[in-house]
C-alpha cells in the first residue's frame, strides 16, 4: 500500500500556518466509523480541513465519500466518532452547525413538485430568512446560474444539470460558511460546469469554504488548493494539492498510486484486441 502522505502542518489543528489566521478548521473529523451490516463504509477516519479553502474529497466509487459527507452534514448518524464544523459539534450543537452549512447531497431528491423559484423561496424561508431577502437572493442566483428561463418550471421536469444548479442555489441561499457538495459535477454539461465553477470560485474568494467530492481528478486539480484522498473507507492522504501530488506529474497519477491501482496495467490480457488479425 502506498504510505500515508499526510501534510505536516495541518495536524496542529487550530494553529494552522496556512493563512487561516487562527480560525478553527472548517471541518475536524476524529475516529469516524460507519458500518452497514457486514460492510464497513467508513473506517475510523481522522481528517482536518482548513477554513477558506476549495477542498476536494477524491476517491473511487464506493470509497465512502458520500457516507462521510452525509455524516459530516448531519444527515446520517455515525456509529462513533466526532465531527466538528467551525468548532461546533455536529451532533451535540446542531443549532451552531445547521445555519453555518449548505449542503447539496447526491442521490437524495429535492421537493420536485415545486418550481425552481418556489423551491428557493421555500428553502430560504425555512432557513429563517425574511421573505423579501429570499426573493432578492433567489432572483440573483437564478440569474447567475442561468435558470431564470425555467424558474417557473417544476423541478421534476428539469435536466440533471439544472437540478444540480437549483440544488446549489438552494444550498447557497443562506450564505453558509461551509458548503458541502457531493458530486456537484456528475452528469452536468460543460456549460453548466463552467457556470457552477464561476459561482464557487467567487464564493471561496470571499473566505468561505467549499468541500466537494468527485472522482474526476482533472477537475479537482484545476479547482482545489487542498485535497483529501479516500479509498476503501480510509483517508489515504490529505494536504495542500502540491503536497499530495508530490513528485507525480498529475493528481491522477498520484491518486492511482495512492489507491494502489497504478501497477495494474490496463488490458495485458486483451492482446487480441485491435490490430489487423481477427
Amino acid at each position, binding site marked *: 500500500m502506498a504510505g500515508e502522505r499526510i501534510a505536516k502542518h495541518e495536524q496542529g489543528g487550530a494553529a494552522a500556518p496556512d493563512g487561516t489566521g487562527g480560525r478553527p478548521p472548517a471541518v475536524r473529523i476524529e475516529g469516524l466509523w460507519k458500518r452497514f451490516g457486514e460492510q464497513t463504509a467508513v473506517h475510523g477516519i481522522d481528517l482536518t480541513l482548513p477554513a477558506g479553502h476549495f477542498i476536494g474529497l477524491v476517491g473511487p466509487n464506493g470509497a465512502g465519500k458520500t457516507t462521510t459527507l452525509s455524516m459530516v*452534514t*448531519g*444527515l*446520517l*448518524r455515525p456509529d462513533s466518532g466526532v465531527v466538528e464544523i467551525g468548532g461546533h459539534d455536529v451532533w451535540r450543537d*446542531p*443549532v451552531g*452547525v*445547521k*445555519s453555518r*452549512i449548505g*449542503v447539496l*447531497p447526491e*442521490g*437524495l*431528491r*429535492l*421537493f*420536485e*413538485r*415545486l*418550481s425552481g423559484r*418556489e423551491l428557493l*423561496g*421555500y*428553502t430560504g*424561508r*425555512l*432557513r*429563517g430568512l425574511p*421573505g423579501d431577502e429570499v426573493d432578492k437572493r433567489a432572483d440573483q442566483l437564478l440569474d447567475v446560474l442561468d435558470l431564470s428561463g425555467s424558474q*417557473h*418550471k*417544476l423541478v*421534476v*421536469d428539469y435536466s440533471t444539470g439544472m437540478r444540480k444548479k437549483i440544488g446549489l442555489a*438552494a444550498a447557497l441561499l443562506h450564505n453558509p460558511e461551509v458548503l458541502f457538495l457531493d458530486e456537484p459535477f456528475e452528469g452536468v454539461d460543460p456549460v453548466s460546469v463552467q457556470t457552477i465553477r464561476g459561482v464557487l470560485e467567487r464564493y471561496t474568494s470571499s473566505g468561505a469554504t467549499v468541500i466537494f467530492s468527485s472522482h474526476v481528478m482533472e477537475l479537482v486539480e484545476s479547482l482545489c488548493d487542498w485535497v483529501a484522498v479516500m479509498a476503501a473507507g480510509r483517508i489515504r492522504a490529505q494536504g495542500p494539492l502540491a503536497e499530495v501530488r508530490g513528485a507525480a506529474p498529475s493528481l491522477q497519477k498520484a491518486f492511482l498510486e495512492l489507491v494502489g491501482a497504478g501497477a495494474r496495467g490496463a488490458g495485458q490480457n486483451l492482446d487480441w484486441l485491435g490490430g489487423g488479425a481477427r
Partner: protein
Amino acid sequence: MSTEPTTAAAPSPVAVFVRLKLTLMRNGLRRSPGRAAAFVISLLAGLLVAALALIGLVALRGVPHAGALAVLLTGILTLGWAVMPLFFPSGDETLDPTRLVMLPLRPRPLTGALLVTALVGVGPIVTLALATGSVIAVADGTAAAVVAVPAVALVVLVCVVLARAVAAASVRLLTSRRGRDLAVLGGLLVALGGQGVSIAAQRLGRPDGLSVLEPLAKVLRWVPPASAIGAVDDAGHGAYGRAALGLGLAVLALVLLLWWWRRTLTVLMTAPDSSTLQAVEKGSGRRAGGAERGLARLLPGGRTGTVMLRSLRYAWRDPKAKMSWAMALGLGLLIPVVSSLQGNGTIYTAFSASALLGMQMYNQFGQDTSAFWMVASTIATPRDAYAELRARALALVLVAFPYVTLVVVGAAAFIGPWSRFLEVYGLSLGLLGALLATGAMGSALFPYSIPSEGRQSVAPGQAAIAWISLFGGFLVAAVLTSPLVAVVVWLHVAGLTGLLWVLVPAGALYGLGIAALGLRVAAPRVARRLPEILVAVSKG
C-alpha cells in the same frame, strides 16, 4: 429480403402487421412460463366470459327488459373500450404508432393494417360474443335478423376503432411525465368506480330492479354503437325508419372515428416527437396564479406559512399526495352516502370524514420522500420540529375542518336526526384532534417510504411499520376520544340531552388540546431522530 429489386410487389401491410402481432405474442409467451400461463389463463377466462355472456343473453330472449339490458350492456362495453387504452397504454406494441414513425407508410393502408391487427385478440372476440348475444336477445323476426348482421359488425368495429383512436390521441400524453402522474390517479377511479358498481348492483338486485334501466336505455339506444342494437329491436317491431336511423347513426360514428383516428395518426407520424416537443412546449410553467398568491398572502409568515403552502401545493401537484387526499375526501363523503343509499345509514357514518382526513397526518415525512433531507437540514431544535409538525397539521386542518363540518351537517340533513348533530359534530372534532396527535407521533416514530412510481403506498419490507403506525395510531386515537364518548353516554343515560350542545365546544377544545399535546410530545422525537427518519423515508 433487402436485396430484392424494388419493382417486386411490396407485401400487403395488413399481412405484415398481423404476422408481426402474432410473432410478438409468441415471443412474449416464450420469455417466461409464468407469462405463458397468465396468457393462457386470461385467454380461457375471456372465452369463458364470452361464452357465458352469450348463453346468458340468449336466455334473456323474451324477458320484458331484455332490450334495455342489451342496449345498456353495449354502452358499458363501449365505455370500457374507450378508457382501456388510458389504463394500459403499452398494452399492444404492434399498435403503438410511435414505433412506426421511421417507416415510410401512407396513412390509408396503415390505418387499414392497424385496424385488422386490432381485431386480432381476445377483446374483440369477447365483444363479438356480447354483441351477438345482445342481438339474439332482442331480434324478433326476419327483418330483425337481417338488421342484426350489420349491427354486430358495427358494434365490434366502433368499439375497436374507438379504442385505437383514443390510444393514438393520448399517446403523447401517456408517455409524458404528466401522463404517468395521471396513471397513478387511475387507481382512484377504480376504487370509486367500485363503489358505484356496488350501489348499482344493490339497486338492480331489488325486485323489479331492472325497470330502473328503462329511462337510461331510452337515451342510450340512440348513442352509437348501442343504436345498432336498438335498430335490431325496432326492426323486429316493424319500425323500419327508426331501425334505419339507428344503423345510420352507428355507421356515421364509425366513419367519424376512422377519420379522427387517421388524422391523429398522420399528425403523430409527421410531427416532431415528444422529446423535441418538450423543449419547445411551455412545459410545466407555473407562474403562481392569482388564487395561489392570494393564499400565500393569507398564510402566516415564517416556517408555518412556508410549510403549509408547500403541503397544500403537494396535495395538488404530487400524484401520490393527490391520490391520498382524493381518497380521503372521496371516501369520507361516500361512506355516509352509500350507507344511506343502501338503506342502513345513520348520522354516525359521518365520522368517516374526520377519521379519513385525520389519517392524512400519518407518515408526514414519508410523503416528502428523500427530499426530507431539505427539512432535516433546517431543523436544529425541538422547537423547529414543533413548528414543522404544527404547520403540516394546520395545512391539514385548513381542509379538514370545513370538510368535516360539511359532511356532518350533510349527514344530519339527509340522514338525520338533527337531534344527534351536536354530539356527532363534537365527537368528530375530538377524533380529528386525536388523529392529528397520534399521526404526529406515528410520523416521528414509524416513518416509512412511499414509492413515487406505481400504485403502492408502502415500500417493500416496510408494510409492517405502516400497519403499526396506522392501525396502532387509530386505536390510540379511539382511546383518546373515549372521554368525549363517555360524556355523551352519560348525558344520554342521565337524561340531560338538553346539555348535549356542550359537546361542540368541548370536542373542539379537547381536539385542539390533544393535538397540541401530541405535537409537543412528537417534536423532540422528530428532532432527535432526523437521520433515522431520513433513512426510513428514502427507500422509495
